[in-house]
């Protein structure tokens, strides 16, 4: 089974990065922040560092971010054809299909698989999970809204998708049971929310040098019986690795637990 690690471009030139990677496949970029998308120079540095071609990991791209990504793709199409791209934006998928069909290996990232299955279930560690493993939970899960599977099958073929990714056991099993496509699983964190209002920068930034780094903040509230985690521009809960014969790649991200954050509070905003 392949092991992959998500690496923000800002980490490539740090001394301890090789140790951090430990021979894993490198996912270069970020799923949640436009400021952590790689340039072709980052791509070359990562390839030089590990001796292997990194996988490009993308996020939802604003128009200027898409323009920058187009430059990266243009370089890669010429100098590293066949590079795998994890696509999390339907516009990027459309762009690659129009301009570079067959020149990249396409993977649907977890944001797009959530676009088709927009409900999360069973938070690990929550007491509400106990006692609800039986019929009631299964019945509820099977009734959750989801894009019809025949459409997804056609979509994967239409866009020449070779792999799909998720952090949800339920979604994983759905693809494993119904589709002949490679499947990756993200752990030990499962997505709960993403934002462009960055807690480390105090809002939407036009430029950023990623002060969030690898910091992982633990957030607690009396209303949830499990912690939330804040990393970069996203919030997570704990996740456990799915056990399934179709699992052929795991993806994790490096993090350093941080105790505190002097955060920006936007006084005067409406709540509720």
């Amino acid at each position, binding site marked *: 089974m392949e092991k992959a690690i998500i690496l923000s471009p800002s980490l490539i030139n740090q001394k301890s990065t090789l140790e951090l990677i430990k021979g894993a496949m490198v996912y270069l970029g970020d799923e949640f922040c436009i400021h952590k998308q790689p340039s072709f120079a980052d791509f070359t540095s990562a390839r030089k560092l590990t001796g292997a071609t990194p996988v490009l990991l993308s996020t939802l*791209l604003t128009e200027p971010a898409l323009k920058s990504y187009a430059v990266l793709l243009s370089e890669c199409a010429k100098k590293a054809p066949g590079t795998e791209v994890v696509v999390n934006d339907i516009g990027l998928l459309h762009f690659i299909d129009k301009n570079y069909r067959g020149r990249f290996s396409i993977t649907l990232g977890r944001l797009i698989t959530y676009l088709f299955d927009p409900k999360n279930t069973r938070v690990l560690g929550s007491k509400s999970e106990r006692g609800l493993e039986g019929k009631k939970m299964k019945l509820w899960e099977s009734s959750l809204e989801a894009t019809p599977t025949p459409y997804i099958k056609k979509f994967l073929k239409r866009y020449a998708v070779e792999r799909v990714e998720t952090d949800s056991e339920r979604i994983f099993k759905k693809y494993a049971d119904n589709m002949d496509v490679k499947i990756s699983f993200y752990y030990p964190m499962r997505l709960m929310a993403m934002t462009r209002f960055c807690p480390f920068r105090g809002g939407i930034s036009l430029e950023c040098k990623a002060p969030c780094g690898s910091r992982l903040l633990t957030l607690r509230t009396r209303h949830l019986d499990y912690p939330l985690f804040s990393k970069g521009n996203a919030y997570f809960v704990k996740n456990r690795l799915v056990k399934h014969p179709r699992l052929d790649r795991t993806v994790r991200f490096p993090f350093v637990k941080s105790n505190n954050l002097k955060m920006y509070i936007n006084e005067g905003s409406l709540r509720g």
Partner: protein
Amino acid sequence: MRITVGVKSLKEADYFLHNGADEIHFSLKTVPGHRAAAFSNEKELLDSVKLAIRLRKKTMLGLNAVYPREKYPLLLRHARKMTDHGLDGIIVRDPALLEYFNTKKFRPYFVSSILCACFNSQAMEFYQDLGVRRFTLHSQILPQDVKMMVSAAMKTETVVFAPCIFLAANLVPFCLCPYPESRDPGGARLPDHACTLRYKCGGSDFRMLDSNLYFQADMFYDFYGIGVHWLKVPRQMNTPKLIADFKITLFLNQLLEKGIDRKTFAVAVAELVKRADMNKYGKSYHFKPFPDKPEKHA
């Protein structure tokens, strides 16, 4: 900018259409959209369309949930009946449903929901190929980026939620937190949206970050400046709050149309929203009926 308001009864439709709304949007409870607030019977819905036609205003049907395949024929029948009665367009979120409508040669004026997550011109093109002609954009896309994406796409209409009224701290549809008071067996029963709760991070307080009123006012001002076509006031269970949201939106839009300067507009937004004290109306997801006498000013 023109204003589209979400309604759930003929009474609401009548009120908003006579008080400055240019369009109403809605769903029927038996064919639900993304929001719980919906008409309970089809006759009222058709009467609302009739009323809008009489007043020369527009109507949009929200089919903006993700539906199972077996529901598609029902959705098509419902949508066709509505357009046959003069409905102007349909708000859709799932490309699978758009494709189905296309294969059935049903191509009314499609509007993409905010849940389509269109952040760039290429995403717009993806949906345009399926027949979408109006795009609901996320309030976390900066106006200068909206301008770039819209100018790079084919001619299209755009919609934004009034930034100081509808605040989304996280990006839909990628907020997977439990919904307030959810009865889902796997979810916590939260008293409010997870993005509004108070958290502790170590010894410090932590709130999921959003924007402040001055930032929101600037966005509002710039959306007007770059030529966004529509302001959206989303439907909700709480009618008095919906009326207040609408009145604030209408008033601020009128200020913009009169040519107010940026600084004065920011002050007006901050003062108005603070003075209106929106908390007094309660939560948008709690049912509150149409008030006997709507307040003159929010």
